[in-house]
């Protein structure tokens, strides 16, 4: 190296720019990090103003400043900015990940205690306050059936609705539908529950139930459908719009009718995105408590029939156990919460694998 300028290489016209520059060694940034932590610990504990969290926060700030100054001195201004921004973005990423990691950790560490065969094999029927046993079998059944039925209702309906909006809808009518789908997205779950309570439980269900209104898991499915539908419509709509127009035209040019083009070309192309949207809706529905409480009624016993009598669900189970006076209840609540999250995770992974496997199969 002949020149050792600290400023960025200047490129006068006609002169070829200097391509090799001095770099800050890795050891230096490590050193800055250590120094930042030590300094921040000294400040915080020296002044006695806070705990570990403040040390970390302050250390990050010191590190960013130190990094910028050091890099500026050695590598020049552009590199210094670059480094500082990268460091900032990485810290933001870690910051966003922290709550997630913390939730996962809490859930696993507390939920693992009651995660045994008894928990998955029994219900809460005849479990007294002094009984350490009792499980969530009935709640798991309830969640699976209610969310399953709701998915069966909403997926065809939602995808059909999105297809209408994107491929067929013209003018005012389609616009109105879009508008109401948007409005529906914001409906609080308790309102959906109340709607089904007023409409299905009080008015319709007496016809099937000897004139008396009756709770059922199916009613909960209806309420969940109200919540899932707009999510599925919107996400499917966005995915369909992303399918390039030349693809549709390519199919039309082969003399393939429009409906077949949509079914066999457009939908498969958009499928991975649609699956993601459906899984978001499923995850949301699986975690809903209020509508189930209102229209399925809860209950401690196993009930396989979603169309008759009370059913519970995992979310409702968590809510009830968390508020229960028994000293064995909190452990059950944590185990059920962990089960719920695991269930959603498994379903999501399964759906993604399925969507991926469908491609390129002859």
């Amino acid at each position, binding site marked *: 190296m002949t020149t050792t300028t600290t400023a960025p290489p200047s490129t006068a016209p006609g002169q070829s720019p200097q391509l090799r520059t001095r770099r800050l060694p890795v050891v230096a940034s490590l050193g800055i990090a250590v120094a930042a932590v030590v300094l921040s610990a000294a400040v915080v504990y020296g002044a006695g103003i806070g705990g570990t969290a403040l040390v970390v926060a302050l250390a990050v700030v010191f590190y960013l400043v130190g990094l910028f100054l050091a890099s500026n001195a050695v590598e020049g201004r552009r590199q210094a900015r670059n480094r500082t921004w990268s460091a900032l973005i990485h810290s933001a990423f870690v910051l966003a990940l922290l709550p997630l990691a913390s939730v996962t950790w809490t859930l696993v560490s507390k939920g693992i205690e009651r995660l045994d065969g008894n928990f998955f094999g029994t219900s809460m029927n005849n479990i007294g306050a002094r009984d350490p046993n009792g499980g969530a079998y009935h709640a798991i059944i309830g969640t699976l059936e209610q969310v399953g039925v709701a998915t069966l209702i909403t997926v065809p309906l939602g995808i059909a609705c999105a297809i209408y909006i994107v491929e067929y809808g013209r003018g005012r009518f389609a616009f109105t539908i879009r508008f109401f789908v948007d409005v529906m997205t914001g409906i609080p779950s308790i309102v959906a529950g109340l709607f089904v309570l007023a409409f299905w439980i009080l008015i319709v269900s007496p016809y099937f139930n000897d004139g008396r209104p009756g709770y059922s898991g199916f009613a909960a499915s209806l309420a969940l459908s109200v919540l899932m539908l707009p999510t599925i419509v919107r996400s499917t709509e966005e995915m369909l719009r992303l399918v390039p127009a030349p693809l549709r035209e390519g199919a039309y040019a*082969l003399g393939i009718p429009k409906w077949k083009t949509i079914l066999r070309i457009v939908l498969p192309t958009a499928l991975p995105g649609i699956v993601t949207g459906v899984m978001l809706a499923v995850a949301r529905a699986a975690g809903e408590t209020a509508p189930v409480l209102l229209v399925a009624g809860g209950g401690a016993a196993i009930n396989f029939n979603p169309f008759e009598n009370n059913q519970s669900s995992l979310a409702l189970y968590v809510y009830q156990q968390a508020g229960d006076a028994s000293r064995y209840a909190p452990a059950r609540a944590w185990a059920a919460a962990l089960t719920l999250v695991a269930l959603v995770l498994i379903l999501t992974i399964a759906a993604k694998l399925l969507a991926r496997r469908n491609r390129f199969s*002859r």
Partner: protein
Amino acid sequence: MAKRIDATSVTAYYGSFKAIEDINLTVEPKTVTALIGPSGCGKSTFLRTINRMHEVLPGARVDGKLTIDDQNIYERDVDVTAVRRMIGMVFQRPNPFPTMSIFDNVVAGLRLNGVRRKSVLEDAAERALRSANLWDEVKDRLGKPGAGLSGGQQQRLCIARTIAVEPQVVLMDEPCSALDPISTLAIEDLMFKLKDRYTIIIVTHNMQQAARVSDRTAFFSIEQTGDPGRLIEYDDTQKIFSNPNVKKTEDYITGRFG
């Protein structure tokens, strides 16, 4: 089999914008016709009116009459799908179906129109791929995704896909603009071969190509931006390239304008 195409005062709009106006021309069966002209003069638009692809865009519409063997395809009771089955189209940019394998791409038109027999599909695929000069390159990877091919291979895949359904007219919108000289020659050879059975209309910016492959040439142009494109001259290719009637055509071909 091949069809005669007759356009009578065809005018096409994008919303309120008139893109082409009063196009009159006749394409004889089993010929290659080249559409040339400066960018934006409405060659693609006219091509798309021939298989009713123009109206796919929202707000786009067509006036006038376009007959294929004396059937006006713009009659109200015409089945658009049947028209497009008869008149295939290759687009400027290759657009293979991304979720399908090479094989599935080629037979998509047949399969989605109800052909189920595996042997029939396999025969058709091989024939189409051979015609498009792609068979040797892909015969060992028919199950692989079509989007994994190179740009030129994708274009030939799209050509194979189009001729697999055996249309009677093939429209090509600058099919060689993404191709290397060798593939371009292959496509031109293909056009010579297809000419025995099909009517071909091709848009091209390449004068030599137009002169090489076409029997008849149509020159489109616009007065100025915002005006609709018009058909300036339509004649035998030889005549157009040696001794055109209109000064504007001569200027364009010799490179003095456009």
